[in-house]
């Protein structure tokens, strides 16, 4: 019986080819997308706060026609702030979790 000769080891494929494949899970642009999403969210929060502030000034100066307008605007600003803080905390948690990986 004959034993086949050991085949030479094929050269290792370059890593860049595997990393550069389009079906990679994380796209390069996703970081920027999250950033712009966050910026948009902050802009909307700023708008909500400004609306509530304007209505508060109107209430103080006696120009407010609808009491509920201010209450609703304040509620929306409050919710938007809570949401932004929640998103920020989650993002920070995710970042901390990643930082703990190297330990």
């Amino acid at each position: 019986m004959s034993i086949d000769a050991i085949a030479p080891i094929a050269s290792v494929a370059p890593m860049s080819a595997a990393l550069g494949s389009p079906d990679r899970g994380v796209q390069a642009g996703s970081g920027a997308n999250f950033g712009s999403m966050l910026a948009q969210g902050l802009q909307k929060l700023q708008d909500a706060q400004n609306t509530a502030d304007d209505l508060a000034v109107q209430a103080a100066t006696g120009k407010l026609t609808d009491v509920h307008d201010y209450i609703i605007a304040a509620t929306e600003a409050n919710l938007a702030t809570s949401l932004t803080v929640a998103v920020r905390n989650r993002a920070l948690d995710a970042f901390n979790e990643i930082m703990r990986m190297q330990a």
Partner: protein
Amino acid sequence: MGIFGAIGIAGTGVTVYRKWLDAVSDNIANVNDAVPTSADVFRARYVQAQAVHYGDGDGGVVVAGTALGPAKGRLVYEPDNPIADRQGYVKYPDIDLGSQMTQLIMAQRAYQANLTVVDRAKDAYQAAIQVGKG
């Protein structure tokens, strides 16, 4: 409409019912305005609510306008009234106080209902923010 849609929509409802309350209050305030038969009598105002379609627009409700009650008024025999005409009649607005009080209750309850929606929507959104914190 922002991300807190339900709050904004309920807010438009609150505005409409506030205006309806104003209209009813104006009608009740003027229910006894006697005028000479030759003059124009006060006409009741009725708020016309109109839906803002949720699919096409933001959703909610707006006041499309106000409709006026009958211009004729009702003739009342009050010969002692200094503004009575030669036959002893004056004109009063054609407003039924009982119907106005019913509308007042409806407007008040609907106002409160819309504010309850605002409150519940706030609770719901806050619960959504709390997801995963437990």
